[in-house]
């Protein structure tokens, strides 16, 4: 019997983690959405953790990177929503449950839909960039021991923010493809 090596074990754990995350939130065909969510998770996680290596910086401390990721998620869940429900029905479900309120609800929901790009990308960017600024300031004040706990905090925040990013992507996808019962 072949014993799986450490690399395979790690990868199986990661894939299992993302599959559990997606299948807990998306009711129908969750495996369809695992590849993109997992890829985003690995990309964001590595980009967050690169900042902890001296001499390297976080990719996600640049707003263009997080904006790109958020735009990919935005296009992805709108595409899947339209594929699942059809274009007209998908755009129509923003009008809300009561038909005569559509003139109020539809513009608000569309505005909320587009502001998701901003909130999704700014959250990640602000957390990582702010973390770097704080670590830099403490490094300027006391360069010897003080930045070490902050670096550990950066490790923790990098993991948490990655989880939050892919969790929100999953929630957006599940909201777009959900069937009302």
């Amino acid at each position, binding site marked *: 019997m072949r014993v799986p090596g450490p690399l395979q074990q790690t990868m199986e754990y990661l894939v299992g983690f993302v599959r559990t995350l997606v299948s807990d939130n998306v009711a129908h065909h969750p495996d369809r959405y695992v590849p993109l969510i997992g890829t985003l998770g690995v990309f964001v996680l590595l980009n967050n953790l690169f900042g902890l290596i001296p001499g390297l910086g976080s990719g996600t401390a640049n707003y263009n990177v997080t904006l790109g990721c958020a735009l990919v998620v935005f296009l992805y869940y709108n595409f899947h929503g339209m594929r699942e429900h059809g274009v007209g029905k998908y755009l129509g479900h923003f009008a809300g449950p009561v038909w005569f309120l559509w003139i109020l609800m539809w513009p608000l929901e569309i505005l909320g839909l587009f502001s998701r790009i901003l909130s999704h990308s700014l*959250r990640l960017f602000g957390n990582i960039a702010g973390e770097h600024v704080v670590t830099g300031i403490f490094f300027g004040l006391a360069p010897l021991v003080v930045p070490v706990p902050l670096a550990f905090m950066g490790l923790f925040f990098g993991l948490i923010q990655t989880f*939050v990013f892919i969790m929100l992507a999953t929630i957006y996808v599940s909201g777009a493809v959900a069937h009302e019962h």
Partner: protein
Amino acid sequence: MKKFLTTAFLFTVAVAAFAQVPGAPAPGLFEGKFLAHIALAIAAAGCGMAQGKAVVAACEGIARNPQAAGNIRTTMIIGLALIEALVIYVLVAAFAVK
């Protein structure tokens, strides 16, 4: 408390006033970086109180029903991230101030 807050505010203002480089054209006190820092402090205070309430509720829930710890923790982390995002907006705005 009010006395303490007033003293702290006066100290902050004094530090900002002393930090002016002599000779440079002095900008107004309530503009630019200083205002961004005050805004960030207010946002952080509100975020601290809100996140404290969220964590208190989550801890009570876990203490009452430890089997639900996983679900409560996930929901709490999502909620904390959404609360934190408001401070992050102020932080980004503070970055944007020249």
